[in-house]
């Protein structure tokens, strides 16, 4: 327990210090975490922490991230992406793997090694790239979307790779290489020795000594690494014939889609009975972990499964609720993941073979970048997007780690090569944030025009958030939509949502007063927040929060009575609408017309009444004190009386020409006409 707390504390403190610094310096959070990890590395080593196990645990962050990505992606959009996904993704993996394998052959490696190396290096880092794209708001750009397609394809491609790689096993050859390394390359031997078993453990998760019982090891090679992500831990389908495997696979995917579509709603309705916020979080985690587990059981990628579930739920009213529940976990786990990448870099080995490994890394990145650039041209990705695509995916990724330990365990690659590749993969990931910085500082300034256009597009996205879908929110929403604006409507009355669903009204479930939910609903990009919820205190709270945190956001708030108007004004809102005032005035006007008043006259009366009422509202604001009940507030009561007397006097006609009514279109008197005539005559006389 104590050591767990110490470890947790160390990781947290490193992150808390390094990430804000890195962000402040414009390096992005990923680099911050990586650096924190590098700094922590020796400490973790000294504490005998198994960094790689930790890393596999943290890889679950990737699963969560794909769930969130899925939530943002409606099914029809995924369908529209299919060409890019298969074409761009397939070509990227195929061509990069081919070139990497070719280069390996040129360096005299056996073809089985070459194929394995090609596959491993073709993959990029979903974790780093998606995190950075989101952070920098680049996800919606063409370049971001293309990168995403490729990453998704890679993620799916890992599964067949895991199935195929064992076929490349050449135990004798591998052993030969390992022996040769021991006898010839003293440098490497020294480095390996100097770190001893400890080092080997920290880098490869305890599965490095694969030379003896390969059969058994290979069988559960994925075990240690799969706890987090890819390796099937409890695979149930391995022993089934091919057709049955396929059947089970489809059944599992079908279960995820059907469950997402039909079970989520009743589940959340049920949970709502408890009125406990944390239960939603628990349920959301349960869903994600459950899906990951199911996928693992049938030998599919958990990331793929949760991604699909996310897509299924993208149209659901619980989307923002799920987003805000899962997001903190994703953030923490990915942070942990990046730190472990940093911590796992073996500087001994690196400095021992500095030029080889740096050369390997840079060569790898260059090849990947060239392939990406070529694909970008073929697929018509233009301008700064082409560069974003090229630079963002030019690294190897976390799936590379997984595959590396897998190939060693399966006797496909010798340890010596895997060690160096592992470093190259890690360093290329470490360099990725630098590539993004190059993109931002060097590339984008050259494409300012493009950027301006993209910025506009994003601008139009999150236009208005309507909080509360009661009668008021419903009308406001309809008006905004009719005028062509995009709205995000939030309400936490599940019963109401249930009743609205058959009518195809799109409302998200969620308590709009919760900051994380507002965040998930896109308040950062929104221009406007319309607050239509019923509860007085909640409205005030929300106004306070929103004015404080988003000074540029326009807030239109509902006030339930005139005292509430003062409260909201004090809370910083300047666009306050009393909820029943306008309709009451209209009703009064209607009553006047029914009594025989000319409609135009009734309209003038209504406007005059509004004027008068607002005047009183402003007058009384100065004496209103939220801490004293109105009827006990002496000056307030006094002013109310005075105002009433003023009004009485007007009605009596003592104050005749003061209202809009009497001034409007009032004809001049005959004296006015006479005076005009006189003036003109006098003027003419003067001229003569």
């Amino acid at each position, binding site marked *: 327990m104590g050591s767990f707390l110490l470890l947790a504390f160390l990781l947290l403190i490193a992150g808390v210090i390094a990430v804000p610094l890195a962000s402040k310096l414009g390096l992005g959070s990923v680099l911050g975490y990586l650096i924190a990890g590098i700094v922590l590395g020796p400490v973790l080593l000294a504490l005998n922490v198994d960094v790689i196990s930790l890393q596999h645990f943290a890889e679950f962050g990737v699963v969560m991230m794909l769930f969130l990505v899925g939530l943002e992606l409606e099914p029809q959009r995924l369908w529209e992406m299919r060409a890019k996904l298969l074409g761009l993704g397939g070509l990227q993996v195929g061509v990069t793997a081919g070139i990497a394998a070719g280069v390996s052959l040129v360096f005299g490696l056996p073809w089985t090694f070459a194929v394995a190396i090609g596959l491993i290096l073709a993959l990029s880092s979903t974790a780093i790239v998606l995190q950075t794209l989101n952070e920098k708001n680049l996800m919606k750009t063409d370049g971001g979307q293309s990168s995403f397609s490729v990453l998704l394809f890679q993620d799916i491609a890992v599964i067949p790779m895991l199935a195929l790689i064992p076929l490349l096993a050449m135990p004798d050859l591998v052993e030969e290489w390992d022996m040769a390394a021991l006898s010839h390359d003293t440098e490497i031997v020294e480095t390996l020795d100097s770190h001893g078993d400890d080092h080997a453990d920290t880098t490869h998760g305890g599965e490095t000594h694969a030379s003896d019982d390969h059969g058994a090891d290979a069988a559960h090679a994925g075990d240690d690494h799969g706890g987090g992500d890819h390796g099937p831990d409890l695979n149930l389908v391995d022993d089934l014939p091919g057709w049955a495997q396929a059947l089970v696979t489809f059944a599992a995917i079908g279960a995820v889609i059907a469950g997402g579509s039909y079970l989520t709603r009743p589940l959340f309705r049920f949970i709502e009975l408890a009125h406990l916020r944390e239960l939603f979080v628990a349920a959301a985690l349960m869903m994600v972990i459950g899906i990951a587990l199911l996928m693992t059981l049938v030998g599919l990628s958990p990331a793929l499964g949760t991604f699909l579930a996310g897509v299924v739920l993208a149209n659901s009213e619980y989307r923002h609720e799920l987003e805000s529940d899962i997001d903190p976990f994703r953030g923490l786990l990915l942070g942990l993941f990046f730190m472990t990448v940093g911590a796992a870099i073996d500087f001994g080995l690196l400095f021992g073979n500095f030029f080889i490994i740096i050369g390997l890394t840079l060569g790898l990145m260059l090849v990947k970048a060239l392939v990406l650039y070529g694909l970008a041209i073929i697929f018509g990705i233009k301008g700064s997007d082409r560069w974003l695509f090229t630079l963002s995916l030019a690294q190897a990724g976390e799936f590379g780690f997984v595959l590396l330990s897998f190939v060693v365990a399966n006797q496909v690659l010798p340890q010596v090569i895997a060690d160096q590749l592992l470093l190259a993969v890690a360093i290329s990931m470490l360099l990725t944030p630098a590539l993004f910085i190059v993109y931002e500082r060097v590339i984008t300034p050259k494409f300012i025009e493009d950027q301006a256009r993209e910025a506009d597009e994003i601008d139009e996205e999150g236009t208005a958030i309507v909080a509360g879908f009661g009668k008021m929110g419903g009308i406001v929403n309809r008006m905004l939509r009719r005028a062509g604006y995009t709205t995000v409507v939030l309400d936490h009355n599940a019963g109401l949502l249930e009743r609205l669903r058959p009518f195809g009204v799109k409302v998200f479930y969620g308590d709009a007063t919760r900051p994380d939910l507002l965040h998930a609903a896109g308040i950062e990009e929104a221009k406007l927040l319309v607050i239509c919820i019923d509860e007085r205190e909640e409205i005030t709270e929300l106004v306070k929060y929103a004015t404080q945190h988003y000074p540029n956001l326009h807030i239109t708030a509902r006030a339930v009575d005139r005292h509430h108007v003062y409260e909201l004004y004090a809370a910083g809102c300047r666009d306050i609408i009393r909820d029943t005032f306008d309709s009451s005035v209209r009703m009064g006007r209607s009553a006047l017309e029914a009594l025989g008043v000319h*409609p*135009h006259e*009734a309209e003038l009366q209504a406007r005059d009444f509004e004027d008068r009422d607002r005047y009183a509202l402003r007058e009384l604001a100065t004496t209103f004190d939220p801490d004293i009940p109105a009827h006990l507030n002496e000056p307030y009561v006094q002013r109310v009386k005075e105002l009433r007397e003023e009004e009485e006097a007007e009605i009596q006609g003592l104050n005749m020409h003061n209202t809009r009514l009497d001034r409007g*279109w*009032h004809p001049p008197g*005959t004296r006015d*006409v006479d005076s005009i*005539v006189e003036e003109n005559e006098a003027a003419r006389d003067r001229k003569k």
Partner: protein
Amino acid sequence: MARVLLYYAHPGHRHSHVNKEMFRAAQKVDGITIVDMYAEYPRHDIRVEREQERLLDHDVILFQHPLFWYSTPGLVKDWIDLTLQSGFAYGDNGDKLKGKILMQAITAAGPEDAYTTDGYQHFPLRTFLTPMEQTANLCKMRYASPYSLYSALKAPGAGEVAPHVSGYVSLLEALRDDRYDFDAAPDVVSYATLPLKVEA
């Protein structure tokens, strides 16, 4: 029988002495259509289709209003801006109003001699009405001389309201019955100079 459409526009109806009486009398004339514009559109939300429909259904369009700042009350201007669309009233294919009569019945506070080059209004009344006249021209309508009352504020004291109102009723009936002689009308028509055709 001509189909007469009377648009009445007076935002200060409650203060009116002359127009109110004219309007009241007009309502008793059979066989004409009367629209109280400020009653129908108190919030200026003119329904264009309905108004164009009305125009198509009538031959004589008459606007009755007080002269406000040498022009019509604001709602009439809004009505014109919105209703007389291109393709309907003017421009390409815009001949739906062709041949109809456009006329005004106005009251002005200024005396008759003020509306002369030497008077304090410096221009004849018809000069102030030229925008309406040219509007009619552009819409291929015939602009008829306005039925007018000068010194409208002094009219009640001078006993001028009653004859002006009964002249108005005669005008409406004559328009309806095709007994109004547009060609014989002076520039500005008063109850004393109504150009009625002699009964055949």
